[in-house]
């Protein structure tokens, strides 16, 4: 479904996953699980991955939690795990993502590291 190699910017050391290529609105945990698997494949064992939300107009709580919340919980438990850094967030997406990280008990510091705001 995704042309993973095209998602890697030539100028960046970290691979970048462009979520907006798959739509402007994201709803379900099932969709997030599918995208999470694609991101893990893209990262190919590397440490960091940029997840670009540019152009995404709406994310549900379930989607945000299953995608970013799960990655964030794993990273907080084990700093050798994949670190997702989220960029290009709309105000709505930022509100929802931060809500997920707060519900999962992530510290402000960790939230700022993963979701710059």
């Amino acid at each position, binding site marked *: 479904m995704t042309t993973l190699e095209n998602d890697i910017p030539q100028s960046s050391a970290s691979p970048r996953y462009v979520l907006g290529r798959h739509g402007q*609105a994201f*709803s379900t*945990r099932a*969709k997030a699980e599918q995208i999470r698997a694609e991101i893990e494949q893209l990262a190919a064992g590397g440490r960091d991955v940029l997840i670009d939300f540019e152009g995404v107009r*709406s994310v*549900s709580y*379930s989607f945000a939690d299953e995608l970013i919340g799960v990655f964030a919980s794993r990273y907080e438990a084990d700093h050798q795990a994949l670190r997702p850094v989220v960029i290009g967030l709309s105000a709505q997406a930022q509100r929802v993502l931060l809500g997920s990280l707060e519900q999962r008990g992530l510290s402000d510091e960790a939230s700022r590291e993963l979701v710059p705001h």
Partner: protein
Amino acid sequence: MEVRLSRAAGSRDHGYAGELDADLQGANEAILDAGDLVGLHPLFAVRFALWMERQRQAGCGIEVKEPQDEATRLCFRAFRLEKDIGGLDEALVEDDGDVIIRPTRLSELTEVDELADKLLQPLIDQFDDVAVVRDAVLMAVSELCQNAVEHGTSDAGCVVAASRGEVDGMSQIMLGIGDCGIGIPEHIRGSHPELVVDEHAIGQALEAGVSGTPKPHRGYGFSWVLKETLASAASSAEMFVRAGQGAFRREIVDARVKDHGWNTSSSRGTWIAYDWTTIGRPDR
């Protein structure tokens, strides 16, 4: 046999379409007179469409007399209530009428994502008057349809409809979602057997972190629909839920939330209406 729908039968709370079975029990041919109907909430449209579908499957011929009220008749036709419930391809109504989503069956979770994605652009392009509640509407479509598809496991799937209206000169957007599954109370009792009263079970299901599944970090969908509603500039909003023998109403006015639950007649499935009223003036 002829049954005449009352003027208020199409309202959100009435849920009359759910009780038509009893009125038309045993009839092979029936006339359903909707001539007096004024107003047609999407939740009624969902229940009516499912009921019509069941009658057709049972071989019962139903002749429907359309509403006489012009606005209601236009909605009745735009909802296509005399036809089979359509899929995603036919979901969105591409004219300048008040119906946004005609009764649409979602059977797979991927269809929930597709519906939200399809709905976004029309909400931006055609519904300026309700722009301030767009995030809340999309959150509701996403979270509530996801619940209905996941937990409402029956052949009927999840059926969703939406329309725009006007109340006291202000614009309103209305959503109806139904499924014929076990219903919220039974589902919640999977993890909370102490919630034996259905309206209490529904009320608890609306709270953050309360879920019928044992998986962690679940049960936040309803609370996020509320959060997005509170974050919006809706002048008021109201949610109505009916499942099992319980009904529950949540009113949101001036950022204050008022809940009320009550006992009602038994109903299979979960039926949810969500209405947002905005200060935007209808542009038509």
